[in-house]
């Protein structure tokens, strides 16, 4: 983000909807990678989406993580804006965030009128 704004990451970023550059839903902010926690200025470096990202989210999260695949890591500079949703700059496919719907699209696509 180019502008300096104050954001409470626990309340306004974590668990919020991710929207890609095309305006489509593409997952949730399931976890955040923060660097420099020992120093003066910790920084969010990555958004982690899906799968293993749930491991750190309580007992049910660990179970859910076991049942699903790898997480997708999105570098923070890909974020365009943070409002009630977190909007990314590029389309989901370029950030590998479209895997889920792609996987099932072939099956659903066989139904007439899909």
């Amino acid at each position: 983000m180019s502008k300096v704004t104050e954001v409470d990451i626990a309340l306004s970023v974590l668990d919020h909807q991710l929207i890609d550059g095309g305006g489509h839903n593409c997952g949730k902010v399931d976890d955040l990678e923060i660097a420099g926690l020992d120093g003066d200025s910790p920084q969010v470096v990555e958004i982690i989406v899906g799968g293993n990202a749930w491991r750190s989210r309580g007992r049910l999260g660990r179970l859910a993580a076991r049942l699903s695949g790898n997480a997708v890591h999105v570098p923070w500079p890909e974020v365009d804006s943070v409002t009630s949703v977190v909007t990314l700059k590029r389309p989901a496919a370029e950030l590998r965030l479209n895997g889920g719907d792609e996987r099932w699209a072939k099956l659903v696509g066989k139904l007439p009128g899909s």
Partner: protein
Amino acid sequence: MSLKNVLAVALGIMSAIGGFVDIGDLVFNTQAGAIFGFQLLWVVVIGVVGIIVYSEMCGRVSAVAKRPVFDLVRERTGFGWGLATLIASEVVNLMTCAAEIGGVAICFQLLSGLPYRLLIPLAVLGLAVSSWVLPFRWIERVFGYLGLGLLVFAVAAIKLHPNWGQVAHGFVPGSHSGDSLMVYLYFVVGLLGAAMTPYEVYFYSSGVVEDRWGRKELGLNKVTAMIGYALGGFLSFALMIAAGVLFLPRGISPQFLGTPALAAEHALGQVGLLLALVGILFAVGGAAIETSFAGAYNLAQFFGWRWGKKERPARASRFTLSWLVIFALALLVVMTGYDPVKLTEYSVIFSVVALPLTYLPILLVANDRAYMGANVNGKLANFLGGLYFVVILVIAVAAIPLMLLTHGGQG
């Protein structure tokens, strides 16, 4: 207001009336009437005001902040509690969907005379094809309008000449007669749960986003929720009054879903019976679609998938598969032959347990200026929202113990 707006309001209200009553209301209102006469009418009033308060609130939040209910559940309660709420709500949605499908099959059976088991897959196929083919607005309206056949119960209730003094007395809570206090309380919880089922707010708030409502539609939101649900509540009164006049003195316990329709037949003959069955068919059919979609909306909103009838099914493939799978699982549940009335009772009682975690995030976000700007809750909405949250907490704690203590209202 232009003619077009008046028409939109009228159409919205009509579909809300037809959409208000589902299998939970049918079962609990008729049984309450058959056991306690008119003594529990006051509970329906409390339930209807509750669903008006929270529907208006979640409609307003969805229109202004563009965030439907399960988005908020995840945001405000976090992953762990959110996932627990998701699992609970999906179990309840599935049970409710199965019960509604059972209701559709029973209506088909009563109308055609064909075997029940054969009609269950046909019911599911009919509902799935309607959901696939019809646009969102049409699903809501077709089922809502044809569900208005239930108005026959209002006519029946009047034609059965109840003692209106006793009816009026039923709107005041007080001492009771007919069965034990525990059974009475079980029905209080059941009637509140049937009126305030969580899937209604999941579906309603997602519908607001699907219909692309914004601040301009806030008036429509308020009027639809208030008048539509209030008039829908009259159908609940009618069911309870008709059962109180007809079933209570004869000692009939309506353990079969077709029983309420007999009240319409008794008062209005064959036409009454037909209208009642068509009304029930579309009311529970619409609710079956709403529950399967509510399940898919919740999953998609929890995990952040693309969702909605506005999306092409293959683009939002996980959402599409979700509602298809819910229909398929519900089909399996009904095919086991488990009694739809019992299934309904369980689904309503368990849904009460899921209510607090559904309603709390709505209440929190409706007060958040960062989301709502000038459209945050006013004093009245907060007073009623807070009051009802306490009511919901109490019944959520009491629901399962009461069900166990009374053997599901059997005493």
